[in-house]
């Protein structure tokens, strides 16, 4: 690259790279959502070994740096003989990271549904699956919206870590531009501003949902 100053073209490149940040966030939330949902169900399962396994998974993921998850997926996958583009390693690690946190958030939401709802539905002869499907989850999902949106902010920010293995998202794009322009203050402020533009509305939305949940009815 022969960029000299941080101008319109460079800003355009940042905007372009922001798409990868957002794509990675979406991958993490969908993948981590599916995996995390399974772990959350396992965490509230009736079998104790299943509960313990799920709790251990959550504790481990929450007890190690996202960077290490990234390195382990990056080197682990290539060790298994896959020559993979950084997007796959980045997507895989963000998925694992998100699953550990979403599982715990959602476990809390499932357990926030009063025990009597389980008893009432059980007494109406529902199977456990039917209880989840028709009675517990609809209520848990409502409770889960504010913290889930709040966590999405963390995911957006943490996708920046994937720049360390060379995945070109917003933070990496900033580094590349800085290497060419040597205007770090300006470049990284612009990068920060773009993150802020994505994250701040999400933070506010989470707060709004939180207030609505507490103000509104239990419906």
């Amino acid at each position, binding site marked *: 690259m022969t960029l000299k100053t941080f101008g319109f073209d460079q800003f355009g490149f940042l905007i372009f790279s922001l798409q990868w940040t957002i794509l990675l966030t979406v991958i993490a939330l969908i993948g981590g959502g599916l995996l995390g949902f399974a772990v959350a169900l396992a965490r509230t399962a009736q079998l104790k070994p299943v509960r313990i396994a799920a709790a251990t998974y959550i504790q*481990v993921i*929450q*007890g*190690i*740096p*996202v*960077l*290490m998850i990234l*390195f*382990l997926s990056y*080197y*682990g996958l290539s*060790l*298994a*003989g896959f020559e993979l583009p950084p997007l796959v390693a980045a997507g895989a690690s963000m998925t694992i990271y998100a699953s550990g*946190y979403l599982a*715990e*958030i959602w476990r809390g939401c499932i357990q926030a549904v009063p025990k009597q709802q389980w008893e009432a539905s059980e007494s109406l002869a529902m199977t456990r699956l039917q209880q989840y499907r028709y009675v517990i989850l609809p209520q848990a999902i409502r409770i889960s919206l*504010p*913290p889930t*949106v*709040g*966590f999405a*902010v*963390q995911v957006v*920010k*943490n996708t*920046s*870590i994937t*720049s*360390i293995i060379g995945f070109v998202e917003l*933070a990496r794009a*900033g*580094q590349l531009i*800085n290497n060419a322009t040597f*205007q*770090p*203050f300006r470049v*990284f*402020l612009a*990068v*920060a501003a773009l*993150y*802020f533009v994505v*994250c*701040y509305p*999400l*933070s*506010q939305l*989470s*707060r709004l949902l*939180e207030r609505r949940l507490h103000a509104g009815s239990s419906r």
Partner: protein
Amino acid sequence: MSYTFQFGVLAQYQDQILSGICLTIKISVLSIVLGCAAGIVLSSIRSIWGGTVRFLVDAYVEIIRNTPFLVQLFIVYFGLPGLGLRVGADTAALIGMTINLAAYSTEIIRAGIEAVHKSQIEAGEALGFTRFQIYRHVIIVPAIAKVYPALCSQFVLMMLASSICSAISTQELAASAAFIESQTYRSFEIYIAVTLIYLVLALALRAVLAVVGMWLFGRRVARRTMTALPEVQA
């Protein structure tokens, strides 16, 4: 898969690993102390003064909480020299972590302060406490006791996030791992070992914080500290 794991190679590099662990602990502990202190001060002045001061504190909190830690580090490490402030990688890491943690601590303690009931303040007044005494004993100490578990979760997250400082060449644990990897190419073994070290550090830090919590606030707070999980609400 014909790969054979060779953890033995790590033994040669235990000095690097140890020095990495030391720096990780050092910058984590320092940033926790400084960030928490700043959080107490900032949440206090925002609750005492209103207006512009509160707006500035809130803006600071929102800006930090809605931008990535990595980018904050870049601004400190690469950006500040442009303004005439040259800082080393370790100092930059410490500054970045403190700035980040101060914002989160402010937000968490603010929530604690807002949960203190008016009636308790009135009770303090009725007992003839001075304003400073009321602030200290009736507001800030109960507020921190209430949110101490959430604060500790944030401290643990910060310790884990200190690994990101390796990106600005701070020679902490993750950087040690990268260095050993570059020398030996035993990437997987090294990162598994270092990941386990982080896991142990996280558990140890939580245990230490629980002991501190017990000493400061009693057994109940300490127990909640061990089981608390990170705040995820924005």
